[in-house]
């Protein structure tokens, strides 16, 4: 086993070699993960905001449920999506199994509860702070939700990043529904699993470092956007 400096060197080598296969795998990783996060936000942000801002019967139950679903085991989600998309399953005719779309579906199921549960907490805290103002201004429920989501946007950005972190690092679900097919559904995490099973531990670790670098780049890009948005807001 090589030491960590040589693994790091190999990782840097991998990044700068510009290997076409690796670029394809990274691109698919980002495409699948970002699509899942975007869809999860489209569902999870309004859902979490609604639960956070409104009082309705069974609200505590919904909160408990959302919080628990954050811990969904990826393999279980993968199996459920597999059984649904399989030719023997109810959605078989769509022919989505072993496609990137199937991977997006599985990751969306994993990420949505995270986005919804964290959004709920953020919005609820903010709502407590704003509630008197809302009442005195007689703001309608939809307007209230919009205003809360907008004012919490920077916290919600971190919420989205938490979802991204879950999705980009996940292997159990995507390997079942994607099948880790070369040039079709092979992503970073399934490649790492494959190389580990081949006993190529150094290459697997180097790929892990590459994955980490990608995660850092995405996070940095989002924080950069945030910083420029804050600047322009005060300009």
């Amino acid at each position: 086993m090589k030491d960590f400096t040589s693994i790091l060197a190999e990782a840097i080598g991998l990044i700068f070699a510009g290997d076409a296969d690796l670029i394809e795998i990274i691109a698919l990783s980002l495409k699948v993960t970002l699509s899942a996060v975007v869809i999860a936000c489209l569902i999870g942000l309004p859902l979490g905001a609604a639960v956070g801002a409104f009082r309705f019967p069974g609200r505590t139950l919904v909160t408990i449920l959302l919080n628990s679903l954050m811990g969904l085991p990826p393999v279980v989600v993968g199996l459920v999506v597999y059984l649904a998309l399989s030719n023997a399953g109810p959605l078989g005719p769509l022919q989505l199994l072993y496609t990137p779309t199937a991977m997006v579906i599985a990751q969306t199921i994993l990420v949505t509860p995270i986005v919804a549960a964290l959004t709920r907490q953020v919005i609820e805290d903010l709502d407590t702070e704003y509630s008197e103002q809302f009442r005195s201004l007689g703001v309608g429920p939809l307007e209230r939700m919009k205003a809360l989501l907008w004012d919490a946007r920077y916290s919600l950005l971190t919420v989205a990043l938490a979802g991204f972190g879950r999705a980009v690092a996940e292997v159990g679900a995507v390997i079942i529904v994607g099948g880790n097919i070369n040039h079709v559904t092979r992503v970073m995490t399934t490649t790492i699993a494959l190389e580990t099973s081949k006993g190529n531990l150094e290459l697997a670790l180097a790929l892990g470092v590459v994955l980490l670098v990608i995660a850092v780049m995405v996070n940095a890009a989002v924080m950069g956007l945030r910083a420029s948005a804050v600047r322009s807001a005060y300009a």
Partner: protein
Amino acid sequence: MFRRQFLTIAAAGLITAGLVAPLKAEEKFIVVQSTTSTQNSGLFEFMLPKFTEKTGIEVRVVAVGTGQAIKNAANGDGDVLFVHAKPAEEKFVADGNGVKRFDVMYNDFVIVGPPSDPAGVAGSNNVTDALQKIAKAEAPFASRGDDSGTHKAELRLWKAAGIDVKGASGGWYRETGSGMGATLNTGTGMGAYIMTDRATWISFGNKGEYKVAVEGDDKMFNQYGIILVSKDKHPNVKADLGQQFVDWVVSKEGQQIIADYKIDGQQLFFPNAAPSGS
């Protein structure tokens, strides 16, 4: 303010739409449910481009354990099944899930062990005797424990040696419940004996000090077979394209390519297709 938010959402929607858009209809591909040994050994990477070049049919391989591959194919999630557990394959055909089974190639299983050789089996070519020695010495043995082709073969050998491994599970007999590569990584880490197919072993990159201890017994023969999934039972099967692949693999050309595949000068698989099938 809200306009910018709207633009972001619109852009996100576009990305999503691009991804969910239906796959190109003219794409010609088949899905092959296969086993990790054929993939990890690099055979498919060597073989499949030649088939694609000749026929224009892309072959998408899902490499899992034989047990899972057979179940996936029995759900109709694959056009061709390419695995190594003859009794289970014959059952697959008998149940109407497959059209016909053809022998493709063989190699053999080996038992690899640590240099200390605690059971004293190194150099043996009698697997029954070697397994009895391992059990008697209670030397650690790492089993796949995952209903794969290799696992099934291993259990047959224990049975033939008259040893009840179930009773020893958790003691010296350790079921990893994982693929071949993961079991090799785990087993070599704990100094255990491990049974593996030779192709995976030769191409395995984390051997450490490990060496082949037991080999050359006829009982350790490892036969691979190929089956077209039945269109009668599973209407989505691309019978025409799948049949072309099966025909090619058992053809003179396909068999020659299997024979040509070598790592470090060692041939990994030995073609033995009989055109009539079995």
